[in-house]
């Protein structure tokens, strides 16, 4: 086996010792990784929305055994296996999990790379010189497999591994070596190990594989039988290159994963700390560092993550969302201080904190502070967005995200549903466009004070839909001198139809309401309604007081 020419592989260290590559392939990664461990034996498929409906993106081992395969429509899959479990494919989450898996493998080798030819479900590791740490290659693979199976995400996940002197051979054997056992190719035997594999093990493109199939070239050996120029004339250069790479006649590099977050500050402690005050001081310092990084890049953090690693390797994580992108160290520090204040009782430093990492995984351009435009004479002050956001952040830090709410108007004709309280962290809904809001009520027709719940009243009124003459509310009789209405508001029938339990059909969504604006003899103005249309819905409509005009 000849050494690769140096100019082709500038980033490879000089071949002073044998390079060894380990290819990992998880045949059912998408499905396995997104299932609970104990359900991995059930048929399960992931689905994507494609043109012309939903199609399977991935199927686990059980589903494939039942005849399902990626690319089928969901309807077909259901026809074949009615009991199949489904979920939407979340490719990003799947990739995240693979990255996490890669990170955990770094305890075996620092050189964990993505697999360019199977980026979604494969990994490529350079394990040169690592095996002796684990007592040899076979033991290293066994240890790897055992640790993986023990881990939460690894139990029951299919895994195929192959170790060889070239990435090409390792890849081919992991994917086409047959079975899920560990394959180890002794140094220098790559060529003979891969010759009998199908041509697809060469990592060729689909068009070339198709041509191979149609020419009847099944195994790599079939391809190797021809003079190289005949192959290149018909296939292009790639098959020969890949063959040489697999055999170790041409070089190839593997790319390690890039370091993750762009903005992070790390502090490793020589001596672990247990006092929360000490931690807090360290966090303050980290905030200053991180803020400086962010400021320099013109970015503001949208969320902060603080990772504390204890000496027993346990990790604590604090997540702090920010209402507005910020690169203000003091603000960040204060937020953490408030979080720590809330934590006090629940903080368990164990035998001490060893490492602190503060990172900003979500960040956005830092908006330059916007000064109020000098509006001649109109002197309306612009809302101090940043200050408000800082205030909101502090409230959330201190009280918790669910405790801080704001009223949001909601497009509903039913008055008590027309507003709701929402957590600050949820963005307010966009205003519906003008045309859509065509049927929205004018605000002048609504009372400022709405009762928490409509109160039943006794009313004398004309049927079918006349205004009240007089009514009794909270034991006081009111004589009506003026009335405007009826304003008719129908029930939200779909809520009625879709509320499963009959209890839910409380009076507030039962019938059509006729609202009247009423003025009594004392000049008090009320908003009351009749529930149920006379004749069409009921023969004895009930009346309710719903609000008071000031």
């Amino acid at each position: 086996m000849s050494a690769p020419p140096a100019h082709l592989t500038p980033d490879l260290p000089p071949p002073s010792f044998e390079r060894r590559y380990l290819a990992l392939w998880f045949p059912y990664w998408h499905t396995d990784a997104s299932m609970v461990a104990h359900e991995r034996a059930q048929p399960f498929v992931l689905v994507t929305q494609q043109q012309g409906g939903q199609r399977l993106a991935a199927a686990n081992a059980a589903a494939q055994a039942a005849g399902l395969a990626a690319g089928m429509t969901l309807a077909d899959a259901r026809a074949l296996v009615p009991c199949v479990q489904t979920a939407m494919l979340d490719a990003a989450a799947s990739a995240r999990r693979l990255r996490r898996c890669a990170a955990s493998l770094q305890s075996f080798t620092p050189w964990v790379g993505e697999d360019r030819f199977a980026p979604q479900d494969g990994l490529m590791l350079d394990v040169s010189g690592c095996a002796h740490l684990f007592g040899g290659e076979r033991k290293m693979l066994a240890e790897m497999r055992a640790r993986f199976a023990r881990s939460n995400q690894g139990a029951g996940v299919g895994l195929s591994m192959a170790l060889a002197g070239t990435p090409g051979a390792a890849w081919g054997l992991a994917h086409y070596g047959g079975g899920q056992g560990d394959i180890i190719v002794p140094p220098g035997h790559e060529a003979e190990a891969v010759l009998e594999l199908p041509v697809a093990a060469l990592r060729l493109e689909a068009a070339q594989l198709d041509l191979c199939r149609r020419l009847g070239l099944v195994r790599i050996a079939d391809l190797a039988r021809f003079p190289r120029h005949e192959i290149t004339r018909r296939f292009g250069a790639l098959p020969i290159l890949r063959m040489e790479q697999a055999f170790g006649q041409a070089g190839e590099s593997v790319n390690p994963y890039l370091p993750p977050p762009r903005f992070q500050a790390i502090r490793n402690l020589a001596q672990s700390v247990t006092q929360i005050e000490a931690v807090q001081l360290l966090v303050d310092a980290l905030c200053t560092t991180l803020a400086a990084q962010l400021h320099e890049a013109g970015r503001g953090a949208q969320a902060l993550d603080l990772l504390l690693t204890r000496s027993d390797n346990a990790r604590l994580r604090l997540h702090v969302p920010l209402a507005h992108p910020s690169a203000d160290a003091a603000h960040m520090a204060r937020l953490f201080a408030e979080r720590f204040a809330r934590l006090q009782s629940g903080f368990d430093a164990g035998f001490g904190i060893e490492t602190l990492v503060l990172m900003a995984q979500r960040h956005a351009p830092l908006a330059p502070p916007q000064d109020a435009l000098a509006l001649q004479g109109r002197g309306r002050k612009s809302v101090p967005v940043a200050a408000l956001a800082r205030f909101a952040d502090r409230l959330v830090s201190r009280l918790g995200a669910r405790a801080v709410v704001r009223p949001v108007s909601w497009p509903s004709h039913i008055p008590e549903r027309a507003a709701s309280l929402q957590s600050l962290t949820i963005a307010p809904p966009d205003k519906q466009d003008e045309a859509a809001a065509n049927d929205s009520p004018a605000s002048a027709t609504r009372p400022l004070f709405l009762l928490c719940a409509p109160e039943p009243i006794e009313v004398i009124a004309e049927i079918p839909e006349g205004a009240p003459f007089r009514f009794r509310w909270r034991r006081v009789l009111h004589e009506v001198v003026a009335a405007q209405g009826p304003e008719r508001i129908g029930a939200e029938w779909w809520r009625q139809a879709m509320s499963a339990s009959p209890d839910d059909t409380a009076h507030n969504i039962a019938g059509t309401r006729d609202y009247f604006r009423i003025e009594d003899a004392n000049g008090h103005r009320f908003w009351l309604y009749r529930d149920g249309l006379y004749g069409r819905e009921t023969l004895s409509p009930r009346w309710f007081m719903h609000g008071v005009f000031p």
Partner: protein
Amino acid sequence: MSAAAINEHGDNGFAELAAMSNFSFLQGASHPQEMVQQAAALGYRALGLADRNTLAGVVRAHAAAKEAGLRFLPGARLVTQCGFEVIAYPCDRDAYAALSQCLTRGNRRATKGDCLLTMTDLTELAKQAALVWIVIPPRRNEAIEAASFRDRLAPLAACAHQIYLLLTPFYGADDAARFNLLQTLADWLGVPVLAGFDALYHAPERRPLQDAMACIRAHCTLAEAGFRLAANAERHLKPPAEAQRLFADHPDALAAIDRVLAACNFSLDELAYQYPKDAFDPELTPQALLEKLTWAGARARFDGAVPARLRDILRHELSLIEQLSYAPYFLTVHDVVRFARSRQILCQGRGSAANSAVCYCLGITAVDPSRLDLLFERFISAERNEPPDIDVDFEHERREEIIQYIYRKYGRHRAGIAATVITYRSRSAVREMAKVIGLSDDIAAALLGVSWGSGSHPPSRAQVVEAGLDPDAPDIALTLHLAAQIIGFPRHLSQHVGGFVITNDRLDTLVPIGNAAMADRTFIEWDKDDLDALGMLKIDVLALGMLTAIRRSFDLIAAHYGRVLELASVPAEDSAVYDMLCRAESIGVFQVESRAQMAMLPRLKPRDFYDLVIEVAIVRPGPIQGDMVHPYLRRRNGEEAVAFPSQELENVLGKTLGVPLFQEQAMRIAVVAAGFTPSEADRLRRAMATFRKTGIIHEFGLRLVDGMVGRGYERDFAERCFKQIEGFGEYGFPESHAASFALLVYVSAWLKHHYPAAFCAALINSQPMGFYAPAQLVAEAKRQGVSVLPVCINASDIEADLEAQQDAIALRLGFNQIAGLTRADAEALVAARQQGGAFDSVSDCALRAGLGAAALERLARADVFAMLGLSRRQALWAVRALAPEQKADALPLFVAQGVRPYGAEEAGSDNLPPLSPGMEVLEDYAALRLSLKNHPVALLRTQMAKARAAPLKTLQDAPSGRQLRVAGLVVCRQRPGSAKGVVFLTLEDETGNGNIVIWPDRFERFRRVAIGARLVQIEGRVQRNGAVVHLVAERLHDMSDLLLDLMAQPADGKLTDLPKPLRPKRQTGRRTPREMAWRGVE
């Protein structure tokens, strides 16, 4: 105010003048008929219906109003680009024409389905014509007060004949203020107010549907819709007393209704249809011309000796035509047909009038009236005043020429294509409503999965359970409820396949014309029922694949056998042809090649032309639903005495042994036996065909059955007759249609029997058409003894052709059989060969024909280089070796000198492993959709024998009740909606076909195999019914994996074009090449 307008309450009757129907797509929530019926039920004096920028719904409303005895005002709701909304009612015919032309202008400016109108269009229209305008004020009070509204309203008011401002109680918070505001504005502008409900639906129960449609329009769910939904359900038609109360403070608004009704006296009945006149001989009247042409035609048909009986019929028909002045219509059809003849385009007429003797003599049809027993005594009737109906089928590849001819001859302003109303069907309704309710995609897909085809019912409870869903879950129940309501609602208009309306005057004065999706195509807003209801004539210019195939057969026969044929000159009543049909050897024959027809042929045993007419008509939903098939067969086979329910019915049913089979017979029964007047019977038919949902059918049904029982018929017979009429409503076959089709059945069967090679080649070249793929057609030809030759680089033509061999004429497949090879490439190939002789190598072919790499690979794949001694792999090896420039375009210099650049393309190809016989067959299927080498199953015979699976031939000869195990390729899977979950499989092997029936319980048990398997082994019991044999499956076994054995290696490539599962499925498993995805032979 007339006395009649005073109702029992002592007040004026009310009339809604601002109603909308569901032809205002996704806005109106009631059918026009429902609006009319509700208005009539409430005792309205009149109803005005105006849909958004269209007149599409008014004819239905007009017809329903006539039925209900209600006065009807047709109008349109004109909505401009700037959002100004106004209803326009024409006062007279001219105003209607102007309105229609205005809408046409708006339509023609926009893309399909849209209408662009401006305020200028409205003022122009107002100046030009006497219309009553009803302005719909904006919804919000601020908008009413806004200057922009006044500025738009004032100029229109200045030039309008009559104009009103609509007052509508919306039951908003400030209705009273709104009314006052409008009244003030009205007084200020001098525009009176008018009372109306601006009704979107006929009854408040439709509010949920209207809300759901608003969601469909806004692409949101109900929960998200918010203020896009109306606050209440008040926009419906209300009782007149309610109207009086609501408008008590605005008596002027109520009084204005009278003025509108007095002004608008236009009715759609005034649209007097004018036949095109000028297109004929100016010297003669149309009648004289028609008579001249008819007699000339008759003499030509019968060589001068017109039989006396025919002469009588002709005289009778001509006098009837004269009486009803239909001569221009016949002349128009004749003109189109004559044009087709001049271009050698085969055509044939059908329809109620088509089988008249006049049409035969004019050459419109080729059904010799003397071959039928006085079929058409009632082809048009004076009493019914129903317009004659002639549909003309043309060769499907050349219909466009006819359409262009009609446009050329009459002009686009006088000829237009009718519309087809595309309605919500089961699937589309469920899909939209699932979105509106906000069902997850997953559940929606499951619901859709059980909505078969384009049914008119949402999935049933059982089907929902089958999908694994709970039909009582509130969201699912609501989805299904709303879906059921919207089914049958129009979604949009589309152009009819070929219904032409040709008028004498401008067409756009009758009906608005709009753009179609196809470039340079326009169509009118009315569909064929609307045209029917107004008595407007249309000619259906339809496309029929079989005519193309027959034309090609005639051409091939003329070229290779020297015999010139045409439809009318094919020898009649050839008993050998009937023998073949009785044996159900009907693959490729028009109409009778379906599985149901093939099952019927041996039972019916057609022996003459009229038997074929019955054969065509009997396997239709009408007779099947009416349970008329078995009684007919029993009587025909002499197992049951031919008896007539009464003397009067003997005249009607004599020809069909006392069993009604044709549409006319059912109608005649209504007249003769149930006492319907002819026009009532006709309305019954119409009610069946079009206004199916409106409940009048049930009424008719009661009347028919009671009428018949009252006249002494058995209730059972009466009910069956009604069921059959119901079935006809959907897919009826009148006798005349059946007769025209029967002729094509006879001609195609005759061709198949006498010239199987030519017929098969013609069918292959006319694909796609018919039930069978080329593989089955070729197999059938081979069974008939035709030798079929493969596609060959030096022998094939572009299309399948005939080739003289030593002893016989063989069928040579053409380059068009190669999947993916373009016609241009095939033409280049043939041209290069004609110029420079046969090709001697792959590179020779590449150079001289100048084919691209992809085309050459397709040729190699199709094994066309075999005569050069190259296998398909060797040919591919050589093709791949060609330098890119050599493939892309020929090097003219080398070609001129006969020099080959490069060379040695075939070198090394001997190293390639040969294809296994199985792979050869599979590759044949992939490249050519058929294989001449062998049948895949034949290669698996040893494995089949090991599995004790018998060839399918055994099934044909097995006695009833025998337990049998067979295996074969699945050629076709059917799960007809009407068959209650029964699945039908058709298997194929080298010995023939076999029909399998799978009952639902077996299907559930072997679901995966029944749906997914390509090669299946079935164990079951033989069921024999006459010559029809089924295997009733008890056990199914998937043998698809055996097909993998056929291949020398596991290949995960796509081998297309073998049977497909119930729904197409694509498999791209990278490392699990489970099965090849085979696409079906339908």
